[in-house]
């Protein structure tokens, strides 16, 4: 680094004092827009939702204060009382499935590309390309591909004699959620692959060489050296996957509509919120605000807990 006085020709002391004086104001002015945006788009809606959720509404007219009345209403009124746990269950399954499929395959791809640098850039780009497409478009394209009537996937399966495999993919309650997990993984697999790739590249060569000299097999090296050092990356990916899976809306909406597909098999909290807010009758604002608060508390709380647990397991 070039010392400041060499650039300006002024004594360092004065410059430092001036830098100190300037920075306080500048820092404030640079932070202000970010704080304003954060406040306007995050804190204000959150506080508003909490406040709105405490009242009964008649359309857009605020009615009497009901306290936890809206919370009680959405947790006890049929069929919402059944739909909330069902949707939560689907979010959990979706998270578990995504961890198992997207992140495991992502890790596998990262290891493969780490070992064989040939074509690394090309494959990294290819696997990350679906990132550029909006989940809504991904959803609509996949629902066309999977259509039992006009879809090329079933057409191809029938063409090679696999008629029994040509299922109504998005129409069978037992298949819909697995299909959602796979389509979602198809879009986002580049994420874990890149994060794991960067983490793998950051592992000091000496450790792996030492293990090899001690006669450790590649599998042993992976589980004893690489994986423990990947834990911080696993932590980041787990938290991001959790938030992504519990906030999912657009892709499910495109694949299964606002009702969450056949027999509600893909119904998730995001869709439930959408239905409560936009098809929810007179007190839609009160009830949907209460539901939004419950979802927020759940995601925020679990994310914090996950982060803490995984931090503790990190190897330093």
């Amino acid at each position, binding site marked *: 680094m070039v010392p400041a006085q060499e650039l300006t020709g002024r004594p360092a002391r004065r410059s430092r004092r001036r830098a100190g*004086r*300037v920075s*306080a*104001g*500048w820092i*404030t*002015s640079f932070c*202000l*827009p970010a704080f*304003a945006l954060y406040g306007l788009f995050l804190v204000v809606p959150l506080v508003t939702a909490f406040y709105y959720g405490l009242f009964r509404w*008649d*359309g*857009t*007219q605020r009615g009497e204060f009901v306290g936890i009345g809206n919370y009680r209403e959405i947790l006890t*009124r*049929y*069929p*919402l009382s059944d739909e909330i746990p069902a949707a939560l269950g689907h979010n959990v399954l979706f998270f578990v499935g995504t961890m198992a499929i997207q992140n495991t395959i992502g890790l596998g791809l990262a290891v493969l590309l780490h070992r064989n640098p040939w074509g690394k850039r090309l494959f990294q780009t290819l696997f990350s390309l679906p990132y550029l497409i909006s989940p809504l478009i991904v959803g609509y394209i996949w*629902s066309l591909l*999977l*259509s*039992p*009537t*006009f879809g090329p996937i079933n057409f191809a399966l029938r063409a090679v004699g696999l008629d029994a495999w040509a*299922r*109504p*993919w*998005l*129409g*069978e*309650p037992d298949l819909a959620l697995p299909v959602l997990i796979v389509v979602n993984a198809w879009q986002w697999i580049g994420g874990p692959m890149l994060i794991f790739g960067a983490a793998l590249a950051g592992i000091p060569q000496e450790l792996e060489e030492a293990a090899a000299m001690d006669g450790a097999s590649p599998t042993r090296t992976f589980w004893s050296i690489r994986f423990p050092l990947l834990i911080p990356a696993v932590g980041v990916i787990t938290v991001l996957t959790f938030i992504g899976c519990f906030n999912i809306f657009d892709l499910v909406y495109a694949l*299964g*509509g606002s*009702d969450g*597909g*056949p*027999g*509600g098999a893909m119904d998730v909290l995001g869709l439930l919120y959408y*239905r409560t807010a*936009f*098809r*929810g*009758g*007179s*007190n*839609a604002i009160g*009830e949907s605000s209460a539901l939004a608060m419950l979802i927020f508390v759940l995601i925020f709380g679990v994310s914090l807990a996950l982060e803490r647990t995984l931090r503790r397991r990190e190897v330093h």
Partner: protein
Amino acid sequence: MPSRRGVLGAAALLAFALTACAPGSGGDSDAVNLKVWGWRQEDVAAYKKIFQSYEKAHPGVTVEYVPYKNTEYDTILKTGLTDANGPDVAQLRSYGLLQPLVGSGSLVPLDDQVDTLSGFPKPILDGAKGEKDGHVYGVPFAIQTLHVIYNKKVFADNGIAAPTTWADMIAGFDKLSKAGVTPLANTVTDKWMLPIEQEIFGATTYGGPDYLTKMLNGSAKFTDAPWVKSLETWKSTQKYWPSQASGVSYSDAQALFTSGRAAAFPGGVWELAGFKKANPQLDMGIFNVPPAPGAAVDKTLVPGYVDGSFGVSAKSRHRDAALDLVRWMATEQFGTALSNELQQISPVPGVEPQDELLAQALKGYQANPSPYVTYAYFSGGTPTAWDLASEAFSDYVLGRSNAADAAAHIQRGVDQWFRPKN
């Protein structure tokens, strides 16, 4: 001092940005510009033409149709009606979806303002009424009717005609199946279509308007035999639906029909214009399902409902001019213009559609009307029967529940808020 200047600069920028976003005020006081909000972006040109004749007869008044995205309209309108800068006149959804706007006092009651409303048939006005106070809040502008829309050429090629008995219809469907044509392009994936399909095939089984009267006064329920049986009647046609119907979406079903791979499509008259656009060569006819074996009535019923109405915002700065406009919307002149320009069925008494199929639909509906029960009459509370029916029917046709379970799901949901009127 640079630091203070920086802060002030940022603050000034923010203040400028905020003022730039603030809504403008004013408009001049002589000329009246009425803003009519609606959800039909595709109808802007037609409404412009329709309103031109009104402007000619009312110098100094201009009428502007401002469309919003269909799916976002309800939310935008809720907010718009709280502000004088919002609409003067607004297109309103009907039945249950209208109630939040009535509840918030956003609309002007029209009973005493629009005399000609008394000439509208009662079932039509039901769609624009506040359920609690019984006042009419809008001038109905369109009726939607439900039918089986069929491909005349495919029917003729297979030697069948529009059926007059249930047995005829089934024999025709069998013939089509044997010939490798899908008889009915039903969707299962898009659940909101399921209650429509149920009304089309099941109305005669439960009995239509007479059964509705009993339901409204509390002497009949969804769970009673006639209504449960109507689900079975509808599901008995399942073997004529597309193969793997559970994965067939609404747009797949439409494409099956317009491409000629399916002979018929059970749906609303609103489909006709889209079908014609997708395949201009398509020669279509409509029929309604004849009474099923064991039906409660011996006539062919035509299910229908009011699609929407035009109401006046309580916050409008030009209430008198807005009321004049909706009075005009209840006249034959407006009804005829709407019917011709938009290919819709106008509910204004005495207006005949020029389009042959629409005329047939209206005639059928006037002769033997049947309600769209779950959407129209049990949608004033939460959860609506329409939402409950969509969910329950999805499970039912997927074989995950039986007709009695499906009916029980609806009844249990509705019982939480519905109180019979004696």
